[in-house]
């Protein structure tokens, strides 16, 4: 099937689930995401219970530390990257491989922008003395936001591998489910970020 030449008209309407392999990948990525939900639940709960807690006289608190403009720009970047990967999947359904590659590349660029801002933010905190081992609060914060950042890095590497590995192949029923699974994973990263900007940044600023 990998070598079958398709035309837009013979390309299945649901290319990501046209094969048994595709169906399995679809269920597989979701089961992984369900286990990831419980992982994030534990780091979120740890963060909330250790928020603002640390050694006596600790000068750092969420209300003083976090800045909303940066969190807002990061949110917009990630939210937009979710839409661009939806565009990539739209082109996949229409058998437009160039569209898939272009929109996936834009997704990667937006993700890189997000990651750069996160690294800048972490560098800024550590530079100010709010390092990983500074307090229970700092450990919980870096573990939560860092775990999300790690997911972003994995997502970016994954999508970049897909873009380069399949550049000469074109679209087929072998790689369509791969792109689809990566896009679902990317949306999940955005889902987690919605809770991070709400629970960590917005509620942090409120005190």
């Amino acid at each position, binding site marked *: *099937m*990998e070598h079958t030449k*398709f*035309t*837009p*008209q*013979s390309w*299945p309407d*649901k290319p990501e*689930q*046209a*094969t*048994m392999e595709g*169906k*399995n990948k*679809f*269920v597989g990525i*979701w*089961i992984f*995401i*369900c*286990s990831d*939900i*419980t992982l994030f*639940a*534990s780091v*979120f*709960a*740890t963060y*909330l*219970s*250790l928020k603002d807690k640390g050694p006596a006289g600790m000068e750092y608190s969420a209300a003083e530390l976090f800045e*909303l403009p940066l969190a*807002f720009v990061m*949110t917009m970047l990630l*939210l*937009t990257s*979710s*839409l661009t990967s*939806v*565009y990539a999947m*739209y082109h996949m*359904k*229409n058998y437009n491989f160039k569209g898939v590659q272009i929109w996936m590349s834009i997704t990667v660029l937006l993700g890189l922008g997000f990651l750069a801002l996160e690294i800048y933010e972490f560098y800024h905190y550590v530079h100010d003395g709010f390092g990983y081992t500074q307090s229970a609060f700092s450990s919980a914060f870096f573990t939560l936001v860092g775990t999300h950042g790690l997911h972003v890095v994995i997502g970016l590497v994954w999508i970049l591998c897909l873009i380069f590995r399949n550049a000469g192949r074109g679209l087929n*029923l*072998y790689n369509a489910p791969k792109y689809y699974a990566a896009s*679902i994973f990317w*949306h*999940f990263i*955005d*889902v987690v970020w*919605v*809770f991070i*900007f*709400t*629970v960590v940044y*917005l*509620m942090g600023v*409120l*005190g």
Partner: protein
Amino acid sequence: MGHDTQVQARSKKQYEYDRHHNAVHMRKQVINFAIMIFLTFLAFAVVVADFSTYYIKPLILLLAGIQVVIQLYSYMHMDDKKASHIGVISTFVWFGVVIAFTVFLAFLTIIWW
């Protein structure tokens, strides 16, 4: 083999219908994106506006909940009833949410720090 499938070329009518359907669906996704951007603006705005925290906290959590449901059901296609094993997937996701909620409850109320 796992990658094999029965491929039948669609009739021209079916093909045109599918393309049109995809385009309509994509327009809906853009509307969903606009809604999510609006909800994000709203969440940041109520925090900046500095209302009472008793009012803001439940509101921004509610806005986050709505955004997540939009992501899951539209961007992540959980609304697609024809998707493979979607019932199993929905069950797993919502049980995941129940477990997540239990963890929150335990860490924030029962465990004493």
